[in-house]
Structures are given as structure tokens and as C-alpha cells.
């Protein structure tokens, strides 16, 4: 088990290294000087020289990378040129907001996805199956931003029952927090619920036809315990794989969600930084978002073993 986890950790670190190279080279791919690009043509030579030495741009490129990584690990991600805000400070303020929306999206979509998947598999061919499968297909096909805008239109503006702008921290007021994330979570989890529902349904149908399920029935186990302890556990493996792949889609989708619902998280910050060409924020955001993604994938990999003893056996 230790061997398996350390191997996976090693691979994740290599991945992070490559991503850091990408994030670092983003600014250097650009023709021209990044400082002049941000400050504009009218900047004084002193200003340019100051910022160039501040960001070590006068050093050789390899040393720049090493310094950048070292500062990043120390928690110094530079200063935004546009707003003169400390990047790591703002990041520390905005990352929890993104997670406070993203984690509920994961929980809600896994819960409902598996629930709907089991229901549609058990009630195959009935009207419940038809309705839920059609909904899942619509969920996969409809674009995220469109669904988000429709939710705002219906629940926020017509019915006026839920707030559709801004964000309340859970530590401030938990009920208000739940209200403020209700629409973003609904919008963000739709596609994810749909994908998990379809995957769970097909896996469950396959597993339910296996011999050991018939044996369990013949032994007189109750239908509920057959479903949730015998069948679901075996159907979960491919679902976890899908979950691992979807994490990056959720993280990427959070950009759209935060933009549409005006949530002050990393995603909306990244968009602002991109439109302002604030490279240091873009670099930091790309790296931090990728770190979150890589480590959630690592978590999914470890989760495999806890659900499937066959994989755990391979770990030794």
C-alpha cells in the first residue's frame, strides 16, 4: 500500500513539474517584454527596470524558473501589476470560495448521480427510467452557461426565491451560504449528475445479471442489501474512473459558474487577469488549479483500493 501510494505520488509530482514548466513558459511564449505589455508603451524606463528586476526578468531563463518555483513554494507569487495586490494573499482569500462551491458540486452530483443510476437500472423500462434517462441526456447535451442563465432567469428573477449574485461565506451565516450556493451548485452539477447516472445505470445492469447476484437472491438476501452491498460496490469502479476524469471538468467549469453567478473565487479572478493580461495571476492560478486537480486525481486513485480489494491486493 505504501509502495503504491508513493509511486502514484511520484507520478503526480512529475506531472506537476511539467505543468509548472507550462505555466512558467506562458509568459515567455509571448513576443515582446511582459512588463512593457502590462504597463503599456507610456511606462517610464525606471518603472520598467524596477519591475523587470522585481520579477527577475533580467536573469537567465533557467534561473528565472528556479527562482519562480522557489518563491512559489515559499508562498510569494508576486504582485499583480494592474491592481498592485499581493497574488498569494488574494489567492488565499479566493481559493476557499472556489472550494466552498466546488466541493458541494462534487458531493451533490455523486449522490444524485449514483441514486438516479441505481433507480434507472432497477426500474429499467418503466416511466421513471424513461424520464430520468431523458433528463440525463438533456443534461449532457445542454451547455453549462445556458443552464446557469436559465436557472437565474427562473429561480432568481421570475420566482425570486434564491439569490443569484455573490457569495456568503459559511463561517458568516450558514443558511445564507447554502442559499447563495444553491443555484451555482445546481448548474454545476447537472452535467456531472447526468454522466454518473448513465455510467451507473449501465454498470448496474451489467452487474445485476451476474451469477453471484442470483446466488445472493437464492440465499434469501433482501433486495436492498443485494443492491447496495453486493451490486453497487462492484458497479462503482468505472464510476470512480469517470469521477477522476470529471474533476478537471468541474474545476474548469467553476470558471464559467463563478463568472455567471459573480462568485469571488479563483475562476472569475483568472478571467479578469486574462482580460487584463496580468500574467503573474494567470501563472499562479494555472498552477494552483492544476495542483488541486492533480491531488484530487491522486485521491481518486487511492480510493480505488478502498473500494476494490482486488486492486488493494496489487498494492502489496
Amino acid at each position, binding site marked *: 500500500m505504501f509502495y503504491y501510494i508513493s509511486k502514484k505520488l511520484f507520478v503526480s509530482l512529475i506531472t506537476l513539474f511539467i505543468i509548472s514548466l507550462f505555466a512558467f513558459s506562458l509568459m515567455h511564449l509571448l513576443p515582446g517584454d511582459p512588463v512593457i505589455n502590462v504597463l503599456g508603451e507610456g511606462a517610464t524606463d525606471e518603472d520598467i527596470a524596477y519591475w523587470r528586476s522585481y520579477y527577475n526578468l533580467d536573469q537567465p531563463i533557467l534561473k528565472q524558473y528556479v527562482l519562480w518555483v522557489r518563491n512559489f513554494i515559499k508562498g510569494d507569487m508576486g504582485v499583480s501589476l494592474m491592481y498592485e495586490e499581493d497574488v498569494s494573499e488574494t489567492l488565499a482569500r479566493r481559493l476557499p470560495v472556489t472550494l466552498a462551491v466546488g466541493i458541494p458540486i462534487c458531493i451533490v452530483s455523486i449522490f444524485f448521480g449514483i441514486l438516479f443510476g441505481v433507480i434507472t437500472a432497477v426500474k429499467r423500462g418503466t416511466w421513471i427510467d424513461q424520464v430520468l434517462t431523458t433528463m440525463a441526456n438533456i443534461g449532457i447535451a445542454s451547455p453549462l452557461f445556458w443552464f446557469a442563465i436559465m436557472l437565474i432567469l427562473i429561480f432568481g428573477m421570475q420566482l425570486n426565491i434564491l439569490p443569484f449574485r455573490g457569495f456568503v461565506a459559511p463561517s458568516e451565516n450558514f443558511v445564507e451560504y447554502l442559499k447563495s450556493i444553491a443555484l451555482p451548485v445546481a448548474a454545476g452539477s447537472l452535467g456531472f449528475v447526468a454522466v454518473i447516472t448513465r455510467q451507473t445505470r449501465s454498470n448496474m445492469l451489467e452487474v445485476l445479471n451476474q451469477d453471484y447476484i442470483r446466488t445472493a437472491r437464492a440465499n434469501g438476501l433482501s433486495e436492498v442489501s443485494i443492491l447496495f452491498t453486493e451490486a453497487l460496490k462492484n458497479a462503482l469502479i468505472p464510476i470512480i474512473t469517470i469521477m477522476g476524469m470529471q474533476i478537471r471538468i468541474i474545476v*474548469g467549469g467553476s470558471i464559467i459558474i463563478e463568472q455567471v453567478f459573480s462568485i469571488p473565487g479563483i475562476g472569475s479572478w483568472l478571467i479578469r487577469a486574462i482580460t487584463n493580461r496580468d500574467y503573474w495571476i494567470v501563472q499562479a492560478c494555472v498552477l494552483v488549479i492544476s495542483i488541486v486537480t492533480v491531488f484530487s486525481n491522486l485521491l481518486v486513485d487511492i480510493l480505488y483500493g478502498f473500494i476494490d480489494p482486488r486492486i488493494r491486493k496489487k498494492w502489496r
Partner: protein
Amino acid sequence: MDELRKNKTSAKLKNSIQVFLGRGLLSRICLVILILFVMIAIFAPYISPYHPNIQNLRNRLAPFSSEHPLGTDHLGRDMLSRIIYGARVSLQSSLLAGLFAAAIGILLGLLSGYYGGLLSTVILRLSDAHLSIPGHVFTLSVAAVMGGGLHSIVIAIGLGMIPTYVRMMNGLVLSCKENDYITASLLTGESNLKILFKHLLPNCFPSLIVLFTMNLGNGIMM
């Protein structure tokens, strides 16, 4: 000989069209819708009632009307015309991005699957790292660096799609490589280049076409 080959190709084409049309009503409806959209994009200047950029500030944010079937935007531009012209840009950019990604991704996947070893490790690690960066984040940041314009959008979206092709192609080649006809062509002394592009690539096409069409949709959404 050439005549024979020509006949064979035309028979193949005929056959595949027949198979496609035989797939039932749903696929025919989809085909009609797709052709309709492509036609709308091609003949945009003849179809759209207004020029997409003509502003009419007196008629801003107008609701549906017989003059403006889908209303107007915040600068008084006709929404229907803008959507029709927008279809051009969307279709063009997603098609070009898809082709760009397919060309690079398929080549890398072929090489990685066929040669294996260090080359494969490097290509697959790179594409894994690429897949760990969320798609929107990657595309947006590349587009930010490249600046505006159709070509930078095409490259940004295209670069984002490459790893999916690499992974799929790698897997397909790995399984195809074990087939007897590949061993046979190796034994007859065919060059690697010929095996790669004449035997392996055509056999991977069915799955690649599925991925390509799915990516076209994703490209439009980006």
C-alpha cells in the same frame, strides 16, 4: 488497374453512404439538421435580414418582433443576424481546431504506440500533465497569451484537444500492433513508415471519427 481502383473507391463510398442512411430515422434527421446549419453558415449574407454589426441605438434590447425575430442586443444589433454570422465563426474555428488537434495528436499517438519505450513515456507523461490542466483554464490562458483573432482561438482550442487524440491513438495502435497482418508486413520487410500510415492509421479511423465529431461539438462550446 487505375480504373479498377477508382471503381473500388466509388463502390466503397456508395456502400458507406448506404450504411449511414440505413441507420434509421434519427441519423437522417441529425444529418439534415447538420447540413442545414452548415448551409446557414455558408449562405449567411443571403439569409440574414440585417448586417450583424449595424447598430441602431434607438432600438436597443428590443423584444421579439416581426422586424427583429429574436430581438436586438445592447447596441441595437439584430440578434438573428448575429447568430447566423456567428455560426460561421463557430463552425470554422471548431473545424480548424479539430483538424489541427487531430493532425498533431494522431501523429504523436501513432509514434508513441508503435515505437514505445522512452518516446512513448515522454509523450504520454506530457499528455497526462496536459490533461491535468482543466480545459477551460488551458484554452483561456493560451488564448490570453496569443491575443485575439481567429487563428489564436483555433490554436488555443486545438492545443487543448491534442491529448485526447494522443491517448486514444496510443491505445488503438497498441492493440492493432498485435494483429497478424502487422507481423506479416514486418516480415515482408515493409518500412515502418508504410506500416504506420498504410496499415495502422486506416484501421484506427472508425474510433478516431467518433472522437473527432465529439470534439467538434466541444470546440463550438469553447
